[in-house]
């Protein structure tokens, strides 16, 4: 359905929109000689001749600062989701930005649909407009995003004296009927021809050319992981993060709690974050993953050209050129970087091929509102760790797989991902072991039975116990790695399940005798005939009593004979440094990579594969992990860094 409005009628249409109190009308307008999306006060504010806006319209779906809930600390557990929202009309969105919105829709709505995003998307009407002026740094034509055939409710083509309007959806049709009833006329073939000619002519305005088609980026990047270009460019990078802020396809975020000075009222805020920033991967204990500039710089391009294409089957760049404009040393443009890699292909080094681990597609809803839970029991395990039994206040069975984690929420402090330490029980309660390392875990340690906490989850992929059935199981734990392992170990050793598994061997290494977790339970295990337990400590300080071995956990391997390596699965969980050595021992034993299970720790902030913090190359620890087979992650350079 196509219509045409003369310039005056179009202005009337916009004025009609502005006078509709149920609508918030936002559009492209001028700011300091550039363009931004902002509130329109009159039809004359609207500019359809813009080249590009400073930041993309993603801000309407993922605002720079979004209050996701409000809490009240004067009550045991009080949180309210923010639901203020008026209908919105966005005027003047360029085709490449529409393409970008279609991408974020896929990420935010297809799987683990984000409630806030969905709500804002539902109430927004997208009025796109064809490109009249092209930004110098844009390469939308090379990306095929300079014109669009879908993704809009209405599409405007400004032909000077008149505006052609193409209806793209029912929402768009209704808007036009309501606000341009006597203004819009059916477009003539001549109008349509002129609009088409204008769209065709846009392509010629783009000067920048891709030397390697976007369909070939995956292949290019699979062979360029160690390319010297990354280091050369990263050396010039200021790490200011501007490229990610202005990008219409970047959608990573952080979440912060802000409490007012009255120490009771506060809000949880979601805000834009960027993988280029230094603290992006910092976990509660202060550890930073992907620490080098080069690695972070490279990561952004790998997301655009390899990681997201492999996951969602689209290239995460629409060629708007905003990053290139915003980058002071001018090293941010994917066009130039990929062209550079292509031209210098002979210098390529270091492959980066991987398959995305299979996960169950759960089309479930996802939001940041935690459910209320009560602390039932607190037990001090060591000077650093406490065990908490937590039950969900709704009383429903809390179902999970061994190896999964939950997000524990304390209003005013934030959230932290914590592994579940108890076996699935079918009850509404479960156990967590919390090590005191940061603000949230410090607060957690001060809690008592009866106190309330928020819980989101369970999240991630745990152990697939069906694959372990019939196998001998070798458990190798280092330090706090025993915590998620305990969930599986207890499940396997449960009388109801025990005969489905073979022999059980546990190697457990701790720093000192004081750091050994669950000593009483381990002593019980030692009494069982079908379980072999070997313990070791790195060192035994003077005055401490220790009967087990001294040395790193790998020193336990010679002590037990693995009789049937072909039919043995190994479960390895420990600090990053431990994996390298244990994996070598397992290789010597002849345990195949697909039968080695590891659980990896990163900054799992959202739990739904969106915020980006827990990414290990192309996989999300919160979705495909935290449990992986070694086979799945061995080609990921960032897995065991």
């Amino acid at each position, binding site marked *: 359905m196509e219509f045409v409005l003369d310039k005056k009628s179009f202005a009337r249409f916009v004025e009609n929109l502005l006078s509709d109190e149920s609508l918030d009308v936002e559009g492209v307008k001028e*700011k*300091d*000689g*550039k363009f*931004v999306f*902002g509130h329109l006060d009159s039809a004359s504010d609207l500019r359809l001749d813009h080249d590009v806006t*400073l*930041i993309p319209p993603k801000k309407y779906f993922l605002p*720079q*600062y979004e209050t996701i809930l409000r809490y009240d600390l004067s009550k045991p557990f009080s949180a309210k989701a923010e639901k203020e929202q008026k209908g919105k009309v966005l005027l003047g969105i360029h085709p490449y930005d529409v393409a970008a919105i279609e991408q974020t829709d896929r990420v935010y709505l297809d799987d683990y649909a984000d409630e806030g995003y969905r709500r804002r998307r539902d109430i927004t009407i997208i009025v796109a407009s064809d490109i009249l002026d092209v930004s110098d740094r844009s390469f939308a034509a090379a990306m095929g995003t300079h014109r669009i055939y879908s993704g809009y409710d209405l599409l405007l083509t400004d032909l000077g004296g008149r505006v052609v309007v193409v209806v793209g959806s029912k929402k768009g049709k209704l808007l036009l009927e309501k606000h341009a009833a006597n203004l819009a006329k059916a477009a003539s073939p001549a109008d349509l021809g002129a609009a088409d000619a204008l769209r065709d002519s846009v392509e010629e305005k783009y000067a920048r050319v891709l030397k390697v088609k976007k369909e070939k980026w995956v292949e290019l990047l699979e062979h360029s992981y160690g390319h010297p270009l990354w280091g050369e460019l990263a*050396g*010039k*990078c*200021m*790490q*200011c*993060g*501007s490229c990610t*802020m*202005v990008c219409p396809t970047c959608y990573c975020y952080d979440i912060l709690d*802000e*409490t*007012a*000075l*009255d*120490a009771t009222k506060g809000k949880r805020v979601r*805000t*834009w974050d*960027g993988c280029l*920033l*230094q*603290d992006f991967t*910092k976990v509660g204990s202060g550890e930073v993953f992907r620490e080098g500039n080069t690695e972070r710089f490279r990561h952004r391009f790998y997301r655009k050209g390899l990681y997201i294409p492999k996951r969602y089957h689209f290239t995460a760049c629409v060629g708007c050129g905003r990053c290139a*404009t*915003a980058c*002071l*040393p*001018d090293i941010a443009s994917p066009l130039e970087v990929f062209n550079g890699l292509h031209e210098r292909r002979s210098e390529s080094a270091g492959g980066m091929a991987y398959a995305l681990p299979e996960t169950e597609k759960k089309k479930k809803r996802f939001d940041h509102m935690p459910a209320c839970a009560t602390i039932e029991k607190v037990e001090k395990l060591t000077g650093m760790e406490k065990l908490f039994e937590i039950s969900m206040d709704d009383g429903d069975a809390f179902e999970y797989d061994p190896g999964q984690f939950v997000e524990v929420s304390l209003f*005013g*402090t934030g959230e932290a991902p914590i592994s579940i330490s108890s076996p699935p029980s079918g009850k509404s309660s479960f156990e967590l072991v919390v090590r005191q390392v*940061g*603000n949230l875990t*410090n*607060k957690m340690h*001060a809690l008592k039975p009866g106190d309330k906490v928020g819980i989101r989850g369970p999240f991630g992929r745990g152990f697939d116990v069906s694959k372990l059935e019939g196998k001998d199981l070798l458990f190798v734990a280092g330090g706090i790695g025993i915590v998620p392992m305990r969930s599986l170990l207890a499940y396997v050793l449960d009388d109801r399940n025990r005969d489905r598994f073979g022999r059980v061997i546990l190697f457990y290494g701790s720093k000192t005798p004081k750091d050994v977790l669950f000593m009483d339970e381990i002593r019980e295990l030692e009494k069982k005939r079908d379980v072999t337990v070997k313990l070791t400590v790195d060192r035994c300080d003077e005055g401490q009593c220790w009967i087990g071995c001294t040395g790193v956990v790998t020193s336990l391997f010679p002590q037990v004979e693995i009789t049937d390596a072909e039919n043995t699965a190994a479960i390895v969980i420990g600090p990053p440094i431990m994996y390298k050595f244990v994996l070598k021992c397992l290789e010597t034993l002849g345990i195949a990579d697909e039968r080695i299970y590891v659980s990896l720790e990163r900054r799992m902030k959202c739990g739904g594969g969106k915020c980006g913090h827990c990414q290990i190359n192309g996989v999300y620890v919160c979705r495909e992990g935290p449990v992986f087979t070694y086979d799945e992650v061995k080609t990921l350079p960032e897995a065991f860094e």
Partner: protein
Amino acid sequence: MSEKSKPRVAIFDFASCEGCELQIANIEEEIIDLVNLVEVVSFREVMKEHSDDYDIAIIEGSIVRPMDVESLKVIRKNAKILIALGACACIGGVNRLRNRFTKEELFNEVYGKTGFGDNPLFDVLDETKPVDGIVPVDYYIPGCPIDRNEFKRVILALCEGKKPELPGYPVCVECKKNENVCVFEKGQFCLGPVTRAGCDAICPSHGNSCEGCRGLIYEPSNECVKEVLSRYGLDYEEMTRRRNMFNCCGREDQ
């Protein structure tokens, strides 16, 4: 919170304009919340009372005189937690500009022939220092002046037994979120890309460029600096001069 458990706070100033303390006084309606949260036992700018019994010491100003060093050491000894308040205390700030001169040059320039003899009030250190140049600092509230919201955040976190954290990213992040035209694009020099955020990019958002008052978080490579300056037609001296206003390190920076 009972009266007893409220942390006792003392606010002190050294070489500074006291503008950061004024920011505290200007918290206005929330000042009631602040005094519900903490007990202010010393705050020369707004009250007569004084006590040396405090948990948290907040220090404004940089350390210029030998006698200041001694007072600061006493404060450090008295306080469980010490906070540096504002650019002068955190990084030395504008006071450090004098470090390009020797003590003698400085005296000559400022007081001329008059001189002040042995009067300790006028005796200065060889170099002006930030607070952590003399005693360990637990937390920093940067800026010239400080950001009131950040001050509130830090105080609240401490009262709740948490470690306050400052943004670990530069001003550009906040500036981009605020949809400003880049200062460089306007042909001016800006320290936003290397300055710690937390001010909500207040200067660029109001048409000025970032002066780096919150301290630099990243030292870009020379190659990068050259590239940027030449791309925007700016010169190295201008950049150094601008950086030195708040982030002058010493004589080598002239």
